[in-house]
C-alpha cells in the first residue's frame, strides 16, 4: 500500500512538471504578447500606446527574450515559491491570486456544502420513493436546473433583484466593507452576501447530483445485499443508510479530483456575471491580457490542484472502499 502511495506521489510530481511546461506553452500559444494585448485594449478604448512605449514595456517585462529563457527564468523563481509578478496588476502573482483564492474557496465550499446538503437527501428520497409524486416534482425541478445555464439564472436573478428591490448587484462585500480591513463585521457582511452567489453556483451542481445520487442509489437498492440486510430484520431506514447509501456515495469520492480545481477557479462565468472577486475572472482577464505569469500560475495551480485532487480522491477511495485497499498490489 505504501508503495502504491509512493508511486502515485512520484507520478503526481512528474505530472506537475509536465503541467508547468504545458501551462507556459498554452499561455504562449496565442499570437502576440502582453504588450500587444495592452495596446489593442487601449486603442479600442480611445487611448494609445506609441511604438516607443511598447518597446520599453517589452524590455521591462522581459518579453524581448526567447520563450525558453522566459520559461527558465519563471521556473527558477517558481521553484523557490516566487511566481513572478503580474504584468497587469504589478504585484507578485502570489499576492494577486492570494486575495481572491480565499474568497473563491469560501464561496466554492459554501456552494458545495449547499449542493451536497440539498442534493443528497433529495436524491435518496427520490430513489427510495421512486415514481412517487414528490420524486416527479424533484425530477422535474432537477431537469430544469440541469437545462438552464446557471449564468442565465444569475442574470435573471440579478435583473429582478435590481428591479424589485433595487439591490446592489454582484460582489461579495458591501461598498463600506470593500475598503475595510478584516473584522467580525466584515465577515458578517461576507456571510450576508454569500447566499445568492452560492445558491446560483450550487444550483446546476445540485440538479446534477440529485440525478446521479438517484441513479446510483436505484442501482444499489436492487442489489441482493439490501435484501440480505432486510432479511436480517434491520429497520428500513438503517438498511438504506448503512448499505446502499454508503455504496452510492462511493462514486463521489472520485469527484474530488474535479472538486479541487473547482475550489480554486470557482465558476468563471458566474463570477463574471455576478462580479465576484474570485480566481476565475482573474484567469480569464489574465489570458485575454496575456498576463503571462499570472495566467501561467493560475493554469499551473489548476493543474496542480487537479493532480492533488486526483491523488486525494485515490486515497479517499482507498479509505472508503476496502476492495481498492486490498486489491491494489
Amino acid at each position: 500500500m505504501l508503495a502504491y502511495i509512493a508511486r502515485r506521489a512520484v507520478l503526481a510530481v512528474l505530472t506537475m512538471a509536465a503541467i508547468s511546461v504545458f501551462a507556459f506553452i498554452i499561455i504562449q500559444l496565442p499570437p502576440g504578447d502582453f504588450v500587444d494585448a495592452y495596446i489593442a485594449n487601449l486603442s479600442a478604448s480611445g487611448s494609445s500606446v506609441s511604438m516607443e512605449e511598447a518597446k520599453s514595456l517589452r524590455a521591462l517585462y522581459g518579453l524581448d527574450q526567447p520563450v525558453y529563457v522566459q520559461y527558465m527564468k519563471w521556473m527558477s523563481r517558481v521553484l523557490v515559491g516566487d511566481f513572478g509578478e503580474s504584468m497587469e496588476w504589478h504585484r507578485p502573482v502570489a499576492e494577486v491570486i492570494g486575495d481572491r483564492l480565499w474568497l473563491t474557496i469560501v464561496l466554492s465550499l459554501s456552494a458545495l456544502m449547499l449542493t451536497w446538503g440539498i442534493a443528497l437527501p433529495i436524491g435518496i428520497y427520490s430513489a427510495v420513493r421512486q415514481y412517487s409524486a414528490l420524486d416527479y416534482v424533484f425530477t422535474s425541478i432537477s431537469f430544469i436546473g440541469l437545462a438552464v445555464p446557471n449564468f442565465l439564472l444569475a442574470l435573471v436573478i440579478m435583473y429582478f433583484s435590481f428591479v424589485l428591490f433595487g439591490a446592489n448587484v454582484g460582489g461579495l462585500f458591501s461598498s463600506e466593507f470593500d475598503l475595510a480591513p478584516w473584522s467580525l463585521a466584515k465577515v458578517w457582511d461576507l456571510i450576508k452576501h454569500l447566499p445568492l452567489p452560492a445558491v446560483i453556483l450550487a444550483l446546476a451542481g445540485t440538479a446534477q447530483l440529485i440525478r446521479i445520487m438517484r441513479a446510483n442509489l436505484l442501482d444499489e437498492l436492487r442489489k441482493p445485499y439490501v435484501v440480505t440486510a432486510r432479511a436480517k430484520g434491520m429497520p428500513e431506514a438503517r438498511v438504506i443508510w448503512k448499505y446502499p447509501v454508503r455504496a452510492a456515495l462511493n462514486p463521489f469520492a472520485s469527484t474530488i479530483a474535479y472538486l479541487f480545481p473547482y475550489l480554486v477557479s470557482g465558476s468563471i462565468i458566474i463570477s463574471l456575471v455576478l462580479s465576484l472577486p474570485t480566481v476565475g475572472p482573474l484567469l480569464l482577464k489574465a489570458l485575454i491580457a496575456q498576463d503571462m505569469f499570472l495566467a501561467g500560475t493560475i493554469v499551473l495551480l489548476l493543474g496542480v490542484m487537479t493532480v492533488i485532487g486526483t491523488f486525494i480522491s485515490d486515497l479517499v477511495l482507498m479509505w472508503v472502499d476496502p476492495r481498492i485497499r486490498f486489491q491494489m498490489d
Partner: protein
Amino acid sequence: MKKSVLLGVCASLLVGLSAFAPAQAQQPSANLMASGLVGKLEGPELILDPAKWPKSFGEAPDLAELVKAGKLPPVKDRVPAEPLVMKPLSEVGKYGGTWRRGFLGPGDWENGNRLNASDKLLFWDPTGTKIVPSVAKSWEQSADGKVIRVNLRKGMKWSDGAPFTADDFVFWFEDLYSNKDIVAAPIPDMSPGGKPGKVVKVDETTVEFQFENPHFLFVDFLAGDTLIGGGQSVRQSQGTTFGAYSPKHYLKQFLPKYSSEAQVNERAKAEGFENWVKMLHFKKDWSFNTELPTLGPWKTTRPINTPTWVLERNPYYWAVDSAGNQLPYIDKVVLTLAEDSEVINLRAIGGNYDMQERHISLSKLPVILENQQKGGYKVHLDLALHGSDTTLFINQSFKADAEVAKWLTNADFRRALSMGIDRNQLNDTFWLGIGTPGSVAPSVQMPQSPGKEYRDKYSKLDIAKANQLLDGIGLTKKDSEGYRVRTDNGERLRIQVQAVKALLPWPQQAEMIGEQWRKIGIQADVREMERTLATTRTRNNEHQIMVWTNGGTELLYLFPRHAIPVDPTEAYMGPEFATWYASNGAQGRAPTDPQMLKIYDLFKSASGQREAGDRDKTAQEIWKILVDQQYAIGTVGESPAQFGVRIVSTKLGNIPSRACIAQHCRTPSSSHAETWYFK
C-alpha cells in the same frame, strides 16, 4: 472567445429585457437634438485675468480640520500665488461627497488617469478646439519655432507640499528620459527632424524646450494626449516614463545617480523588486504608489490593484473656483472593481454610480433611459468628433495575394466598396439611429474638417455607381451566384474582412456590410478574431481589410495613426508603409501610389508650418485625399458609442450638458470634474 460569447448573451438578454421599456425610448433618432439628451459643449470658464482672481481662499472642511490640528499649512500657503481660477459651469459648489464609479481592474487604468488629466501642461477648452493653460500658466513659441517656453505657476506645490519647479522638468529630462535603462529611445515628440531636443531651466518657474529644427506642432503636442504632453498620471504609469516633468525630490532616491547602483538595487531587492528599474517603474506610477507626489486633483490612497481604487483630494491642488474655494469639491473618488463591463452597465442602471461614462454601452440606451427616474440619474449623450466609429481600413501594402492586392490598391474599387455600404441600415441597427453616417473625415465642428461634402463623398449608398465603377475596372465577369470573379483564375473574388469584438460589435457589422456588398457582386469573408490575434496579423501585413475605429483623428497631427499609416504600432492602412515612414526609409517598403506619397509629404510639411491656421489647411488637404482615395472607408461616426453615454446622478451639480469625448479631451477631464459637486 468565451468572453465574447458571454457578453453576447448578456447583451442579448438585456436587449430582450429592454423590450419592456416604454415605446418612447425606441426611436431617439430624428429628434435626437430635441430629446434633451444631447446638449451643447460647455464647461467651466477659465479666468485668466489676474485682476479678476479671488483674493482669499476657502478649503474643504476636512482640510480645515487638519490645518487647525497643525498637520497641514493654511490654504493660502498651499494654493499657488498664481492659481488656475475657474468659474464653475453653473454655480459655486459645496465640498464633500464620494464619487462612485466602476472600473475593470488594473488594465482599466485610464479610467482613473482621465480624472486626473488636468496634470497636463496645457489643455483644451470644453469644445476641444482651443488650447488653454493647465499646469503651465502660459507659453510662448519663438518665431523660428525652435524654442518653446513654458511659464509655471509661482508657489505651486506637489501633492506632498514640496515645491513644483523647473528642476522637476530637468530631472525628468536628464535623469529619466535620457537614461537608457529607463527610456530606450528618444521620442519623435522631442526630436523634430530626427534631431533630439532638450529641456532647459531658465529660472524656478520657467522652462524651455529647445530644438535644432522648427517644432511648430510642439504646443499642440503639449496639449494633446501625446507622450510629451499627456501629463504625469498617464505617461508615467504602466512602465513608461514620458510626460515632461517628474517629482525630483521624491524619485531621486530610487536612481543610482543619487546614491549608487548597488544601493538602489539592494533597496529594490528588499522591497521585492527584481532590480532598481522595476522599482522605479512602480514608484513613479501614481495608481500603484500612494506615496508618489502628483499634481492631479485627486491622488491614489488605495492602489488600483485592489478591489477598490480610491482617490482622495490633493490638499495642494492648484486650482480654485471663482470664489477662491480650493478645488476639487468632491472629497473622494471610489472606483469599484467589476469583473465584467456588463456588471458596470447593470450597476449604473441601478443607480450605484454617481457619474459613469466609461464602459457604458450604447446598445443598452433604452434600458438606461427607462430606469432614469428609479436610478436617480440623468443621461447625456456626448457625440464624438471623429468621423467613423466603424472604419474599414484597406491594407495598401497587402501582397500575399497579388490579385486581391491589385484591387485593394485600386481607388475605384475602394470607392465602389464604400458606395456599396448602406450606412443608414448600419446606423439604425447598431447605433440606434443616433450616429451620423459618413466618411472618415472628422466632424465639421473641427477646424481640420474638409467640409460637409467630404463627409458624404463616396459615402452614400449608390449601387448603380458602384457597379459601374467595378465594371469599369474590369471586374465584369460574375459567377452563377452573381459574385464578381477574379481575373487571374476565374474563381470568385473573396475579400477578407477581419473584425474584433471591441468597441462595437464589429464582426456583426462587418457581416451586415458583407451582405450589402452582395448587391455589388463582392464577396466578403468576415473573420471574427480575438483582439491580439487581429493586431498581430495586421502588424505582419497579413490582413486585407481590418475593421477598427478611426477615433482620435479629429486632431490629425496629435494622433495620426488611425488616419495615415505612420505608426507601425497600429497601421491598418499599410503596415509596411508605416514601417518605412517611421524608420525614415531604413525598413519597410515605400508606397508607389502618388496620392499616398502626397499625404506623407503634406503631413511632414505641417510641422514646418508656423500658423495653426495653415496647418489646419494642410490637414484639410490630407482629409480630402483620404476621402477621395477611400484608403479607409468610413461608415457611421459622430456618435456616443465610445464612452459617450454618460450617466450622471441628479445629485451632482455643474455638470455640462455635453462634454467633448475626443481622445485629446481626455473624457471626462476637459469638463473639469474638480468643479463638480454634490448638491
